[in-house]
């Protein structure tokens, strides 16, 4: 029987309160378990893929808070008899994951967890997958990523200069073990589709405690909105995230592509907070206007129109 797509939302009133974050996340996970959406066999191996796109702390809105991964793993270890939990992220053009694990507190957070190991997916053994994707015919992915019994994606609620949002589907592109990922940027939507086709996460968790707006995924502004989003379907979860951010999901190319190709569904149930109650406008990245189909056709107008728009926006924008 095909499981119905379900997404849960929780609001943390005080984004600085670790206790409240732990309580709200546990509660969301409990509710998912009650719906039979989380179940793991004894001795299972789990891979957790957090968004660590840059060596910038969670408080900047750029990366996932290791505390959220800790709460999730604590809950999993309490509930299930797991063999190992691997936290894996791959190097990127301007990211050395080994350094990021140290500097951003991941090593410190998990040093007393014998079952938990941190893994640079770029250094993992590779497995070749025959994919027939939109960009890749064959895709080499890390063995741990492909063979773990259970894959959990922890994304960050952020705007993205190229893909509008980066939550779950885009986070999975981070697991692709090639360092020079920037070369795929011209085909990003297709590549995101392919990486997710290779393996979809079984559980999606989005860290929106301190989200990011504006020039994401790295240079944007922190937006402390205290949201936690959990889902069993990457497409549904991203759809909910985009609605929360007031970004039209039907204009997010990689999301539309993923739904169209059957990687997930836009038809889902929501529990916890209502989207209407927690949605808030995320300032889009400033160059978005250049992508406007009308302005794009008149190259001479691009710069002055964009400049006027930005100036107007900056003037309107209350800094606090």
């Amino acid at each position, binding site marked *: 029987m095909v499981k119905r797509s379900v997404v849960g939302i929780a609001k943390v009133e005080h984004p600085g309160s670790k206790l409240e974050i732990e309580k709200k996340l546990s509660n969301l996970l409990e509710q998912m378990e009650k719906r039979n959406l989380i179940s793991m066999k004894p001795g299972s191996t789990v891979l957790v893929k957090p968004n660590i796109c840059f060596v910038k702390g969670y408080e900047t809105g750029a990366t996932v808070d290791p505390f959220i991964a800790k709460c999730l793993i604590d809950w999993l270890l309490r509930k299930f008899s797991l063999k190992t939990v691997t936290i894996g992220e791959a190097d990127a053009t301007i990211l050395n994951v080994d350094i990021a694990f140290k500097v951003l507190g991941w090593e410190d957070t998990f040093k007393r967890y014998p079952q938990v190991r941190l893994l640079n997916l770029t250094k993992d053994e590779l497995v070749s997958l025959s994919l027939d994707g939109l960009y890749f015919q064959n895709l080499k992915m890390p063995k741990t990523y492909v063979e773990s019994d259970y894959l959990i994606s922890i994304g960050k609620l952020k705007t993205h200069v190229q893909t509008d949002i980066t939550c779950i589907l885009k986070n999975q592109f981070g697991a692709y073990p090639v360092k020079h990922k920037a070369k795929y940027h011209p085909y990003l939507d297709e590549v995101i589709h392919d990486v997710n086709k290779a393996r979809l996460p079984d559980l999606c968790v989005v860290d929106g405690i301190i989200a990011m707006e504006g020039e994401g995924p790295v240079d944007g502004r922190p937006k402390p909105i205290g949201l936690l989003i959990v889902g069993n379907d990457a497409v549904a979860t991203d759809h909910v995230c985009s609605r929360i951010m007031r970004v039209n999901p039907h204009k997010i190319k990689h999301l539309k592509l993923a739904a169209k190709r059957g990687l997930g569904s836009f038809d889902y149930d929501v529990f916890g907070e209502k989207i209407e109650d927690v949605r808030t406008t995320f300032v889009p990245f400033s160059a978005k206007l250049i992508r406007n189909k009308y302005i794009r056709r008149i190259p001479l107008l691009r710069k002055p129109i964009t400049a006027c728009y930005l100036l107007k926006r900056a003037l309107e924008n209350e800094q*606090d």
Partner: protein
Amino acid sequence: MSKINVGIVGFGAIAKKVHMPNLMSLKNVKVKSIAELNAKKVTRFAKTQNISGLYEDYDEMYKKSDLDAVFICLPSFLHFHAVRSAIQHGIHVFCEKPMGLSSEDAFELVKMAQEEELVLAVGYNRRLAENYQRASKIVKSLKLGRILQVNAILVMSGPYVGWIPSSDWFFNDRYGVLYDLGSHLVDLTMYVLSDRITEVASIGSNTLQGLNIYDNIAAVFTTEKGTLGTLNSGWKIPQDYSAIEVHATAGSLFANPIDMEIRHGSFNSLERAAHHLRSARKNLRVQHNSEAYLREDKAFIDAVRGNTNPLVSGVDALRVLEVLDAIKGSLETGKRTKVTFHTLH
């Protein structure tokens, strides 16, 4: 609603030019009496304002005048005794800053006020400037990320040059500028950061020939949350200047009483242009510098009525004096000095 009977202790510039007009403008307040050693200079004013109680001794005023609250507007070194006596007489106190010259004194006053359940407010009004209030709100909102560095500065002309010739008492104390401007600066910094300074290292200079006092002081500090920072306060600068810079993992904030700017990672020339336009537009509006004084006076009267808390409490003032003690210690020894905190129940 019955009026709050208020007395004024010390009728210098701050009382006459600031608190008195503010209190006169509040409908629920009656300024009943004034205690001033040089009573002659008050007589005419009191007559025109219909203030019947004039005293040379504040203790006598506390005893005879049936006051609900009192404003202590004396020179800093006289604050402690005047506040203590008022509390002993069961009177709510608003004290001009600083609340004495040592944290031991301040601790005693705070404990006494708590035991007697009296309001004890202190006049650190610089933190009430709109931009500093916004800065504090932004830091609390987590929108800057983790605070790493802070630079805070408060310089002005100082006594004689920009204040009034009767301010000789500013020169009585060796630490001169420390209690005058340093106290404001420490309060402002801890307020904006919502954090406590825990360790300091200070240096000072004396450019007032013939007077053995510090007129310029610089200090580096660390805070409870691990922020590093500097404090600079000094006299003899022709134009007043006060500002705080906060540098954090997700952005930098630059605030002074007339301007505030935030720079995030995406800060560019267009944002800079927009900021200048916004500032110019804002600066065209009339600035009301006296508003902060009125707000603190109003809040104190409200607190006396039991409606709210004062904007700056005796506890806040105690925390400032704890840091000033450490800065003093560091100036004397030339070494890093830890701040000694007093525990309140």
